[in-house]
């Protein structure tokens, strides 16, 4: 997957977790929690959805990489490079 495809995949996950959020103006450089109402349970859901959908494992010590869209995509890039886009 390219970074753009990974971003789209993460957006899709966010839409599933928080269907009431408007994500069209999401700023990739800002933290998710500044822009959306995400609590710790929702945050874990991102990790678990990644595992469910793409078999990508995010160990607990890496959670800090998932604070914003930008950092999430860079963190996932090497892990998801080999996954074909849908």
């Amino acid at each position, binding site marked *: 997957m390219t970074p753009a495809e990974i971003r789209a995949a993460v957006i899709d996950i966010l839409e*599933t*977790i*928080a*269907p*009431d*959020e408007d994500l069209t103006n999401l700023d990739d450089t800002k933290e998710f929690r500044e822009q959306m*109402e995400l*609590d*710790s*349970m*929702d945050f*874990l*859901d991102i990790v*678990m959805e990644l*595992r*469910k959908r793409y078999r990508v494992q995010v160990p607990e010590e890496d959670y800090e990489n998932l604070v914003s869209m930008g950092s999430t995509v860079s963190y996932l890039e090497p892990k998801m490079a080999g996954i074909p886009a849908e």
Partner: protein
Amino acid sequence: MYDSIIIGAGMSGLAAGIRAAYYDQKVCVLERHYTIGGLNSFYRLRGRNYDVGLHAVTNFTPPGAKKGPFARLLRQLRMTWDDFGLSPQLMSSISFPGIELQFDNNIDLLRSEVSREFPSQIDNFDRLIESLIDYDDLEQKHFETSTRERLEQLISDPLLIEMILCPIMWYGNPRERDMDWGQFCIMFRSLFLEGFARPFDGVRLILKKLVRKFRELGGELKLRTGVSKIKVENGRAIGVILDSGEELTGLNILSSAGAVETFNLCETEENIHAHTTGQLSFVEAISTLDKYPRELGHNKTIVFYNDSEKFHWERPTDDFCDIRTGVICTPNNYCYDEKDGDLPDGVMRVTALADYARWRNLDKVFYPKTKNNWFEQIQASAIRFVPDYRPHVIDTDMFTPHTIHRFTWHENGAVYGATRKWLDGTTAIKNLFLCGTDQGFVGIIGSIVSGISMANQHLLVRS
């Protein structure tokens, strides 16, 4: 071999099951009763639908709200606001002799009532609201401090303290007399800062949606399937033995049967002190009327009443029931959708405190007689606070602590479970976890959130 075995198909067990199944686990929910729901089930009698528990779904927040337990559970269960079909309450009250505080789903009404009846206390009341612990900051160490002591520090009029405690203890205090501060904060938020609502079709709507979701995701629900033992090897739970004798193995076991009840199922020396067993149980006198309560001039959703200045929250020790205090619920008095209209009949439900042991010890002849006798007394107590509906009663039903025990197996028929809570859900036995009432969140929304969070922490994240 299951990834997760869940004991109990009440709100918490079903919610936990949905989470596990959603994340592709092989999961089963085992329920001893022939139907789902546990403490909040439903039944049909002489052609009418009854709910067991539901007075009000607490924690109500309107569509689009992103904060609070209700919004959180919708996101976690991948359900929509409409799935719960909730209609908000009209207005409720806390009624003591000669004084009443009304409240609805906007805290402003209760604030203005407090400032009218207790003008010197409104700043104290605001300070109380500010000092409530947030749901996410609940930790065992502040959880167990005394609510009465806290309130005495904040509020200087003892009558206001009793009036605040009455509804809050009624809707979620497992302890006698005093309450854990953590539990108080949870309940204060869920009653006054969030609010009351009800699905037009009652609790069956919520339960059916939960079960459908669980099954669609591949979960297995087994009714009439009681767990008689939890198998423990080297301090680790490895599976369950069913009432039928059949054995099932699982990597993790999550139980909503109650803490003491669950430990009693374990083949282990580990035993917990009986004094944590809850003592508080209820009777409920349900009347069907030939008129709508509003036609009798009754427009309130719930009335929490107490007939003296002091509120007594304890198991009756010298009689079957204590009818000095009670809760009167009128399921008709919600803002239902116009397309639904009103319920088919007028209904008044009155709950009173009751002593489990006394009810259990009655024989077949005296049990129904005692029920009839107390039905009359409970109604007579309630009509001091609502219009006299007795001439309009066309059908009745009543459940007792014995009924609650018989259909949910909770010790003492204790509706809010043990007097201490297991907030992190872990037990002395590895791979065995608790959810629901004894984890710490009670009520419909509370127990669903409990099931979700315990499934997340113990069934999903660690695996």
